[in-house]
């Protein structure tokens, strides 16, 4: 595969050239992009909101966050700890969903390879 070349350079002969624009507009590709977006956009918005809740609450409401829950373990520490669980949970959900994406990608690549050779 060519190192992305400056416009005008011919790609090496060995690499099969795909009609990228045609693939880009196939229903299979549009569906792949749409289904990725359906997961990634909400997941990203969710983790950003959940994350920034921590500095905002800690910064502007230190009193509330300092309330003890179990012994001297307070809301601030538990909320910070929950961020780790949140990150791992979003990660696990993504890995599960990504298996569907992989299958869709595989189908597109197979079809394109068949056509190029």
């Amino acid at each position, binding site marked *: 595969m060519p190192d*992305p070349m400056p416009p005008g350079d011919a790609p090496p002969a060995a690499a099969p050239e795909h009609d990228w624009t045609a693939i880009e507009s196939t229903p299979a590709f549009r569906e792949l992009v749409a289904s990725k977006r359906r997961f990634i956009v909400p997941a990203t918005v969710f983790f950003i909101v959940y994350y920034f809740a921590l500095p905002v609450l800690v910064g502007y409401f230190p009193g509330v966050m300092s309330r003890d829950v179990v012994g001297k373990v307070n809301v601030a520490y538990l909320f910070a700890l929950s961020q780790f669980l949140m990150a791992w949970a979003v990660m696990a959900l993504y890995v599960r969903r990504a298996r569907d994406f992989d299958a869709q990608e595989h189908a597109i690549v197979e079809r394109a390879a068949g056509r190029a050779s």
Partner: protein
Amino acid sequence: MNTALVMFIAFIAVTLGITYWASRRTHTTAEFYSAGRSITGFQNGWAVAGDYMSAASFLGIAGLIAFYGYDGFMYSVGWLVAYLTVLLVVAEPLRNTGRYTMADVLAFRFRQPAVRTVAAVSTLTVSLVYMIAQMVGAGSIVSLLIPAISFRTAIVMVGVLMLVYVIFGGMLATTWVQIVKAVLLMGGTILLSILVLAKFGFSFTDFFAAVAKVTGKYCEVGTLKDGACPGGAAPVTRDFTQPGLYYHGRWGALSLVSLGIALIFGTAGLPHILVRFYTVKDSKAARTSVVWAMVLIGSFYIMTTFLGFGAATLVGKQNIGVMKEGVLAPNQNLAAPLLAEKLGGEVFLSFVAAIAFATILAVVAGLTIASSSAFAHDVWFNVVKRGKKADDREQVRVARVAAACIGALSIVLAISLRTLNVAFLVGLAFAVAASANVPAILLTLYWRRFTTQGMVAGMVVGLLASVVLIILSPAVMGIDAPTAAVKHLIQADPVFPLDNPALVSVPLGFLAAILTSLATKEHPEAERLYDELNVRANTGLGAV
């Protein structure tokens, strides 16, 4: 301290062995830059974790928590959540479209020389700043623990060693050095955490009860001086489980948010982390690497609770530092090593110091390879040589020479900047990465209308804004008492109130990129190139 010396030498011998083995397998460009894409997702996960858990994480966070309690833990949280940005939006498309460097992706749709040059400048800036921080850390640790070795010698030692790894072993050696170091660091941290908890009968609540007995004071306005606030106001007392000891006062909350922005977006723009995804065979392996890295990094950062609070309770911040002529010079970076000494005596101290040294060495090697590839591949091969003649051997030779120059430059800078605060330097690197690189990466992957001029404008504005605001911030500007051990570089009141610029510089980077793109037009070929990039990024079709 002879045990420390023995452990250092053992680590160095093992890693030099790896380098020798790797050097016999490194001949082509792909082997030098990306280990021939032979690393598995699981191995790369460890290597990403190794690259990421630098001196700032192991020594820096433990020190911040030991001195300021809860607020120090904010770094731990941000540095893990950051990986969701990498996992969801950056890692897989980057692996699918690039080859050796961050600029491969940025230059894909655009006019090569301009974009590659700006991207290389930004990569070199981020890596160099990050590297100076590590070297300063190494110099301090080694010279404090082995008094026979001076600061200068320690830095030169680190510099020369990492050059050997990179120049002879390339990416393969660097990756295995990361993996060995990550295993050592995780092992040492788990052991330390268990020993800390054992002191409290393995009761988490007893541990926190002890932490709550440690207190600190601060002033709502101004700085605390001899136990009193300016204007006779009473200082506020907080225990270490409560927020506020570091971030307080008028700009405290905003500083916290600004730091959060730098941490969770900066990671997706760190060149030495991004190039790691080229060492695996495809985007699925890139995903697996992020997953393993997140498991390791998350567990490690949770354990910083025990390192930091352990040092606060068992050692006490009044004892964290080094005795010089009968007076204790405070040094936050020594919290973790001194905790180890308290728990396991001199042998354990040596072990932890050796781990800290290994950590720094490995991270510096990773940074060197990222920046030397940026120079050799982006500037030399694609700009100077115009990508005309793909001479592998020449490119590898240039990369090796570049590594030597970058190493020498960072050694000189680290020696002259040795009084600077290490955490501040790493914060600068994250803020620069978030402001200059992240807008460019996100917009090139997801925005059809993006243009060459937009990218160049975004990167230049992001880079300048973050660097200038840091120079004007309380991190660099401040008026110190004549007796202060570490002085601010500029003795004047800070112009910019936040100690991290991301809140302002990241939006500026995006704004410059978007507005300039809307005002300019890309060559007609760009439309087709976006289709190509989009298909490649999403499917991995045609990926190397």
